[in-house]
């Protein structure tokens, strides 16, 4: 048994925290149930520290190569844990005041994050499957956590059915992969087995790859597997929606990156057109449908779908040229990171507004500049950043993808870039709806909105981060570059 315990330390700490939260919750009286949150926060931060100790420690391999802790994994682990901090922070008031089961919620949330943290290290089909389920299953439950609310029930039902279905399809694909590779489940082994798969198995292999992709396409809400997302986001508690939109989706991308760049890299001629289609369809559906939305979370859901489309584009840019792949990979990773920041910020701002306007219509943001100026400015920055316009970090995200697309060349790259560009412009329409409400409309109730301090901190930090990334994008651009995974690419 080759187990690198140091490398697994973050997971251990997080798992311990999960159990601790569960146990402590039993002993906490109702009034202090919220205490589970700071407890979880401490655990997450500890786990984050553990991740930090692994930086620069090289690639750590455990469990016979099925679990790898490398820079790529660390980057994403760090990202997930920071996301966890944020989601915890914005959850506190929301759940405390909403009369929910707080302890159980934090338990489920942290379990889900445990799955997220495992995802980027899992280099085995079985592990990927388990990690994915570990992310999803608590998600199904959390989506329905507003028990008395029919919408929340509905969110859970839809999320669950589509989630399980796509898992079934993915598993079917995995079973076929297992068969055609002669019994391999490790990603690297799959890659070498697929390299010389007999000709008669080729079609089946392609089908299997497609089926596997479906499972992750569901997570990242790619068209036509995105239908659950708007309904679920809208029905879920807002912090859960934030979790789904950021952590869960990014976990999907982390899995997808490993699968595509490690296991199925050789077959890129097959899946590149698929991703091209998925990307174009996803961003277009997301952006165009978002134009007609009136509810904030739903708008963010469609926006998230569109953003997924942008990220998916980087998959469609893979070629035989390793350098160009590296650019595409780096662009995708960088965009994911920036996307996480701006989306978390947007959801945090939404949480702030939800205290006064639980329905969270876009119109409910009217006059926010007066009732909550910090939130309003932050939200404006997030929206502008999501639209990809300076002076925000979102600009660099789009730029990097554009650059990768142009570098790929060969017709497809520029064509995708043009589609993305048209989409970007369309997206401005609806992104500007929000600042318009906040700055150009007056609120009905002009009294100061009481915003939880933690939410304000989150919004402020995200705002500063986005503007900071705009001024000094080097760290983000470099961060993506160091990802070791891409070295394995074709």
């Amino acid at each position: 048994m080759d187990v690198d315990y140091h490398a697994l330390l973050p997971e251990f700490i997080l798992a311990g925290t999960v159990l601790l939260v569960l146990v402590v919750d039993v002993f906490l009286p109702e009034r202090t149930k919220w205490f589970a949150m700071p407890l979880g926060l401490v655990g997450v931060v500890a786990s984050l520290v553990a991740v930090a100790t692994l930086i620069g420690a090289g690639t750590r391999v455990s469990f016979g190569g099925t679990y790898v802790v490398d820079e790529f994994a660390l980057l994403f682990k760090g990202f997930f844990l920071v996301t966890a901090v944020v989601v915890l922070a914005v959850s506190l008031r929301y759940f405390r005041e909403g009369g929910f089961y707080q302890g159980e919620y934090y338990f489920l949330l942290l379990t889900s994050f445990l799955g997220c943290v495992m995802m980027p290290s899992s280099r085995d089909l079985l592990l990927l499957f388990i990690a994915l389920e570990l992310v999803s299953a608590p998600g199904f439950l959390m989506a329905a956590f507003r028990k008395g609310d029919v919408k929340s029930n509905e969110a859970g039902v839809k999320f669950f059915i589509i989630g399980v279905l796509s898992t079934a399809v993915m598993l079917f694909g995995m079973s076929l992969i297992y068969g055609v590779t002669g019994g391999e489940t490790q990603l690297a082994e799959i890659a070498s087995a697929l390299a010389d798969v007999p000709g008669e198995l080729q079609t089946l292999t392609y089908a299997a790859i497609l089926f596997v992709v479906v499972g992750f396409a569901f997570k990242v809400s790619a068209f036509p597997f995105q239908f659950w997302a708007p309904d679920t986001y809208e029905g879920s508690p807002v912090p859960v929606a934030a979790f789904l939109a950021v952590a869960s989706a990014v976990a999907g991308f982390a899995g997808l990156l490993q699968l595509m760049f490690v296991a199925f890299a050789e077959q890129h001629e097959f899946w590149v057109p698929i991703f091209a289609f998925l990307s174009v369809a996803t961003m277009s559906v997301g952006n165009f449908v978002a134009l007609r939305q009136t509810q904030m979370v739903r708008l963010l859901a469609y926006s998230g779908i569109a953003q997924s489309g942008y990220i998916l584009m980087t998959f469609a840019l893979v070629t035989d040229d390793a350098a160009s792949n590296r650019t595409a990979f780096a662009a995708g990773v960088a965009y994911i990171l920036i996307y996480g920041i701006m989306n978390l910020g947007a959801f945090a701002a939404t949480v702030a507004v939800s205290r006064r306007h639980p329905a969270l219509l876009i119109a409910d943001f009217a006059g926010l500049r007066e009732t909550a100026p910090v939130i309003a400015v932050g939200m404006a920055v997030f929206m502008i950043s999501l639209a990809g316009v300076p002076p925000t970090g979102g600009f660099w995200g789009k730029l990097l993808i554009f650059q990768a697309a142009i570098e790929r060349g060969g017709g497809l790259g520029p064509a995708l870039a043009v589609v993305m560009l048209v989409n970007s412009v369309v997206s401005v329409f609806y992104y500007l709806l929000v600042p318009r409400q906040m700055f150009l409309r007056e609120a009905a109730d002009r009294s100061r909105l009481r915003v939880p301090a933690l939410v304000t901190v989150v919004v402020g930090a995200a705002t500063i981060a986005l503007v900071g990334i705009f001024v000094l994008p080097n760290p983000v651009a470099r961060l993506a570059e160091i990802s070791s995974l891409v070295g394995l690419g074709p």
Partner: protein
Amino acid sequence: MIRLPLVLMFSALLFSAGVYGVLARRNAIMVLMAIELMLNAVNVNLVAFAALLQQMTGQVFALFVIAVAAAEVGIGLAIVILLFRTRESINVDEVNLLKW
């Protein structure tokens, strides 16, 4: 001493029946049952390949799938019961408050 394609065909039929059930049943629990059929199809595949390839991985995989399936059923039923509580019905085609 069984030919692989036969097993795979059986799996395919289970899977397809599951697909039909998911699409055609309106009762949420029936939908869950159909999903179980699909997961069983996966397991048949895994076990068949494991038998063909003379190794255990497929069987282990199948065991994990069974475990996860059990968890999913638990979650699913909990959600369905919650749904029943709030709506007095578990017909999934009536669950359409959230749309557009």
